[in-house]
């Protein structure tokens, strides 16, 4: 987001701008801390069911964030992220169920395994562009439930794996749903921070350059093969970690949980939220969780028609997604108070 006013800034005003005695950076920190405190306090004012729903929203947000890295920033379309979500979920489930690993300790291995799987999948994917890659990943999404049934000594086949419910640490005095909400919230904050650091730096610029013009990117000295594979790996790392969290929160994995529709939902959530944004992932998570239910409430007979209509409306009214479209407005409003600051920095092409 390049703003015209930015071109007139004299260097010395940038660092020295103070508002009510504090720098813009300090204000940002304060705003962020207040926001986090509010979100962390949220479950204590809601029923357990709504806490569970919001936990799922955050899990989907992490998965969509993963897809945004690949599809939004790097331009590789994946219709198969449900498969990586399943891989993460089953890694966590098998570790917990077979080897008695505590739930929190399953996240790093699940993320790592999905990173490796993503890199392995990303290597042949280098040969596929655009719709061809979409087709290859679609094939993977279709194969996922059947593969899970085939390796039934590990996956429990059709009946899946039942997981013991995580126990919140004694002494905190909070119930399981609220504890898991906080665990997932921490995971989401870490994921967003890591993604922001990566995407707003050298790596992110390389991703975007490859998306916008691969030949020019290569001519600038970017190792396109390496960065595309890296994009695939980090993307599946996030989505796999989300899958592991979902397995822990739901307490059950089975092949039916990871149908092709899950992969499509991720792409829909990503597009609705804002495909090359970080904050858009949260909007995407909200969409995945709530819109099918709302559609069902509107019409029992044709929930998917309503769902489709909602998608069309979003795409027509906000073609760059909710955050992609509203972000600049918010930035403009923010700049009235604090010139030269932006809240939403996205990698979308202007």
């Amino acid at each position, binding site marked *: 987001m390049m703003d015209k006013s930015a071109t007139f800034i004299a260097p010395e005003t940038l660092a020295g701008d103070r508002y009510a005695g504090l720098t813009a950076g300090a204000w940002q920190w304060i705003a962020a801390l207040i926001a986090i405190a509010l979100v962390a306090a949220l479950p204590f004012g809601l*029923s*357990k*069911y709504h806490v*569970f*729903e919001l936990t*799922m929203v955050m899990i989907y947000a992490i998965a969509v964030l993963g897809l945004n890295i690949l599809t939004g920033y790097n331009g590789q379309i994946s219709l198969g992220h449900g498969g990586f979500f399943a891989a993460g979920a089953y890694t966590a489930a098998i570790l917990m169920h077979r080897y008695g690993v505590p739930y929190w300790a399953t996240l790093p291995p699940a993320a790592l395994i999905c990173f490796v799987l993503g890199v392995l999948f990303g290597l042949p994917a280098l040969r596929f562009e655009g719709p061809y890659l979409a087709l290859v990943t679609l094939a993977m999404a279709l194969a996922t439930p*059947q593969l899970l*049934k*085939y390796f*039934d000594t590990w996956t429990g*086949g*059709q*009946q*899946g794996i*039942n997981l013991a*419910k995580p126990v919140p640490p004694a002494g905190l005095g909070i119930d399981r749903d609220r504890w898991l909400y906080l665990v997932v919230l921490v995971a989401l904050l870490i994921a967003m921070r890591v993604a922001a650091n990566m995407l707003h730096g050298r790596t992110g610029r390389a991703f975007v350059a490859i998306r916008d013009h691969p030949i020019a990117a290569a001519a600038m000295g970017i190792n396109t093969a390496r960065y595309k594979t890296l994009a695939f790996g980090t993307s599946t790392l996030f989505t796999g970690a989300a899958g592991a969290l*979902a397995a822990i929160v*739901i*307490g*059950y994995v*089975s*092949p*039916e*949980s990871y*149908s092709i*529709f899950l992969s499509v939902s991720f792409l829909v959530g990503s597009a609705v939220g804002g495909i090359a944004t970080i904050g858009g992932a949260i909007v995407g998570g909200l969409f995945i969780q709530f819109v099918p239910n709302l559609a*069902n409430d509107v019409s*029992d007979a044709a*929930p*998917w028609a309503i769902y489709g209509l909602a998608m069309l409306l979003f795409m027509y009214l906000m073609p760059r997604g909710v955050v992609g479209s509203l972000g600049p407005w918010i930035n403009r409003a923010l700049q009235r108070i604090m010139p030269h600051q932006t809240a939403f920095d996205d990698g979308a092409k202007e």
Partner: protein
Amino acid sequence: MAAQRALNTGLSALGFILAGVLAAAAGQYGPGVSDTEIKIGNTMPYSGPGSGYSSIGKSLTAYFAMINDQGGINGRKINFISRDDSYSPPKTVEQVRKLVEEDQVLLLFQSLGTPTNIAIRGYLNDNKVPQLFVGSGADQWNDPAHYPWTIGWQPSYGTEARIFARYVLKNLPNATIAVLYQNDDFGKDYLKGMRAGLGDKANKMVVATKSYETTDPTVDSQIVALQGSGANVLLTAAIPKFTTLAIRKVYDIGWHPTQFLNSVSTSVGSVMKPAGAEKGVGILSAAYTKDPTDPQWQNTPEYKDWLSWMKKYNTSGNVADAFAVYGYSTAQTLVAVLKACGDNLTRENVMREAVQIHDLKLPMLLPGITISTGADDYAPIKQMKLQKFDGRTWKVFGDIVSGSGG
């Protein structure tokens, strides 16, 4: 002082008695129950890969609509809340939590599917919410030691296989058996049930087993291999498509074993006719409900009641649809349990009544087949009747066979 104490004691005693009388008059209610309403929760795949089962959900809704028109159960209307889970277990968990925590239903009834019900079983048992008459034929719903709040309904796959085994032991004592099964829990339940039913003769009698994957194009090589074993009995535990392929191949290679089909793959229209009706003559299977297309029932008052309900309440249903018979019968089972509860509609009492049903007769079950449960018997229907295909339709024959026990 003493008088004061006596008075106090007397007053508190009176209070207790009053409270007791009031409670008895108002009935004892669990969540979701009032003097005018009982809330029942359900999940059903109205969309997605399992949507073929949705006619069961519509039948349940239609049956409760009729009950409500007739004045409800002991004056209480059924508020049946059926939610779509798309046959996706995470969605089932979410919808069931909504039903229990937000809608505050008294119990879960006939939620459909094996993985979907496994996903919610732990949650419902932890919270002591009855999971009544699960819509799945898996063997695992009869497990009161681990899951006292979960109970099945239909004969399980294993029950059916044991019924076949008993028939074989009685009528074909020198049989050698080959089994073709789908390589998942559904197929394996049959194989396991067959072996259990044969008991110590299983190893001698079962001479060959072959599995297939639902992704296989045919089962030709499996059938040829099974024929090569020299078996004279073939049990096919397969979904409709592969049952059709198996019947045709057995006939085409000139093999003439006594064939058993699992009851989910006996549809005349979608299995027997596509295989070639003449190729299926003499094949055996088992049933527990009346086939709505069978002319022998169509003049009975039970069938006519069912038909008039179909015409008045289940208008979107198909009168040839066996699922409409299934939904009708399961709903009747729940109504019987709720009637037995009287005004004591707590979750504990509902569960108590659900596991003490004695020989409940339902109009659309085959004559003689009844529903019975007990504290250590969570398998309501254990009996079936054998049936034989005559080239046109299935004819039930013989006595009622029980498949209960190991």
